[in-house]
């Protein structure tokens, strides 16, 4: 007789429910193993994400070293209020996501949904600010390969009158700064979009009570993903926005 049969014969229905809930997959021995495997699996996936963004950070490091003045000039055209606001939105969304996981852990369905909704709103807010910034870059001819122009950099920047305008060859290198800016924020935004979509799906299922019966793993592991995307932005913000702002 295997453990399942023994359990079924000797335990009470409620006990079976506790030990063999419907969301326990057949290839796991028990719920603890399933939950730990799922969390570990999500961490291994986040490792792959670290290395995925790692390549971009490597490229950034090389070119910032080579073309520092161009990077400074490029960074000064970004709106620091937008970057700071976005960072704030994401940090708050990380907090709300952590609270959502907490609500799932203590099995409060309505708070879980509320925290998830706030997280979604903050995430969408982030994307709106980002969209505005990108539109701004487009308007100023800062999109590499599509409408890029070095006009702005060969003349004095009114916001930073102390900045010397760049020589044409260094001004050309600002295109690299913007390439990395769009690649990195674009990749990050893509992860945000995926995150918001997944969270919406989780919200719908949470409404049906799927995560307040002990089956916390999806919410918990989505939380890990969300926090990771936040961490990427925590690094992108100083690297892209705060280059030599004191000048």
């Amino acid at each position: 007789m295997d453990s399942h049969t023994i359990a079924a014969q000797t335990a009470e229905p409620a006990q079976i429910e506790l030990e063999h809930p419907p969301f326990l997959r057949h290839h796991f021995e028990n719920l603890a193993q399933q939950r730990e495997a799922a969390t570990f699996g999500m961490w291994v996936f986040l490792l792959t994400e670290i290395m995925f963004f790692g390549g971009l950070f490597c490229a950034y490091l090389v070119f910032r070293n080579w073309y520092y003045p161009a990077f400074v000039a490029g960074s000064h055209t970004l709106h620091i209020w937008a970057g700071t606001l976005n960072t704030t939105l994401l940090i708050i969304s990380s907090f709300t996501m952590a609270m959502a996981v907490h609500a799932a852990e203590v099995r409060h369905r309505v708070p879980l949904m509320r925290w998830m909704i706030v997280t979604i709103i903050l995430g969408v807010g982030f994307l709106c600010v980002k969209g505005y910034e990108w539109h701004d870059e487009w308007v100023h001819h800062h999109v590499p390969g599509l409408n890029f122009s070095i006009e702005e950099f060969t003349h004095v920047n009114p916001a930073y009158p102390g900045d010397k305008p760049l020589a044409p060859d260094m001004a050309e290198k600002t295109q690299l700064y913007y390439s990395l800016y769009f690649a990195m924020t674009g990749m990050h935004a893509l992860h945000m979009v995926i995150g918001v979509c997944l969270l919406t799906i989780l919200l719908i299922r949470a409404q049906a009570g799927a995560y307040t019966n002990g089956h916390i793993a999806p919410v918990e592991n989505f939380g890990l993903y969300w926090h990771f995307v936040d961490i990427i932005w925590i690094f992108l913000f100083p690297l892209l926005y705060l280059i030599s702002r004191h000048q």
Partner: protein
Amino acid sequence: MSTIVSLPDQSTARLPKVSYLNKEYGLKSWLLTGDHKRIAVLYMISITFFFFIGGAMAALIRLQLLTPYADLLAEDTYNKVFTAHGLIMVFFFLVPSVPATIGNFLIPIMVGAKDLAFPKINLLSWYLYVVAGIMMLCVLTFGGVDTGWTFTTPLSTHYLNTNVVTAGLAVFVAGFSSIFTGLNFIVTIHRMRAPGMTWFRLPLFVWSHYAASILMVLGTPVLAITLVLVVLERTIGIGVFDPTKGGDPLLFQHLFWFYSHPAVYIMILPGMGVISEVISTFSRKRVFGYTAVAFSSVAIAVFGFFVWAHHMFIMGISNYSALVFSLLTMLVAVPSAIKIFNWCATLYKGSITFETPMIYAFGFLGLFTIGGLTGVFLGSLGMDIHLTETYFVVAHFHFVMVGGMLMAYLAGIHFWWPKITGRMYPEGMSRLAAVTTFIGFVVTFSPQFILGYLGMPRRYAAYPPEFQVLNVFSSAGATVLGVGYLMPLLYLTWSLKYGKIAGPNPWQATGLEWQIQSPPLTENFEKTPIVTHEAYDYEWLANKTRNEVTTVG
């Protein structure tokens, strides 16, 4: 107690009534399966398909190189052919070969679990492979790609009009297939071992897959982002690899080889795992130095990340950096050598028999050693200046990948064929195929070392006429090699219907997979095994096999 047993009489063996093969019928039950064994079979069929396409490309290459002139294929076409050969063989055959087929099938069983940790992700992994494969077939159909499998910039980003973007995206998707396989293995090995199955009771096959999975998970994403950057460079012109915009083509190579060097260890480590199992079984002896072999697998994985720029010595990296990488390359050879020594020590005073898997394993020992040693020549900076981008490199990696990895894959397929299908293959035919492969291989690739040393460059459609004799030898060997690979395709397929029934343990091997029926049940074990014996414990096996029923029905 003697552990020498002759192979059990097969005549009384019967196929079990219920197994993973006949539990459910219909295409949907295969295409939507979560069963790791079925997914392994799906992979086996797909990678065999791509192997023969890559092999056809190889045939074209060797035909072209029969004569010194570009008379069979034009230069551009030749470039497309060797690129296709490289891309298909590396990403669609070698990387998934042992892990996705034999690994997927066996890892859960070897650790004593019912399935991998994430069956749906396992299935997704196969579908990603298929999608990537279809994209690659589209690339081949619509004009090919001629960058070489390495997509070197700025050739790939600025100077070619072929399907670089599609090929890059195909490899991107195939990379994620690999990542998910590795992720599944890592979680399964850590978290789903049966009671009593400690790390040091695991078969060495599991250890090597664990090491390879670490590489898959940490290295492949860098390839992914690199290919994304190449695609962006080609489509939008972002400039990261373009010198005219201030970019650095060498940055591409750093990022590319950061994955592609560990990739060669991703390819070989699972094969080494197979060799450990085969050598132990057919010398009836535990693997000598289990701990050393286990840790050397992990050491290969770790050191493999520190040596990538040895592919870039002549490309323009600084001499100081080249020195550092050359030194580290010397170090990375050590764990591989440790394994070879340990396998040889396993053979010593063992009771050796020459079944087909063992013939392939012997082939591996010799050919991988030669390939590995020539890698050391290439790793030393001074020699590399002369040898790089010549046929010496081509011979080196074919010795380790074909003479090493492919032989290990065939050894594994033959060794576990009875377990996967319940049938034996025809032994006489298979031994003939193994020997043919070995002879064909040596005749094909040994002349290439000489050609390389004499200065024949690689990736050239034509060559100076004085190199023709050696090239003809090489092409002749390739024909024999091709025959050697066709034979298993034929007799293994034949054996599915007409092969002798294998019982649960035709080789009298240790390991949990041999204690269950052939083919296994869908849930692998009737009840969770409790492991009390060490790995490769032949005495335990001899005591156990007296009266045992391990088939259902």
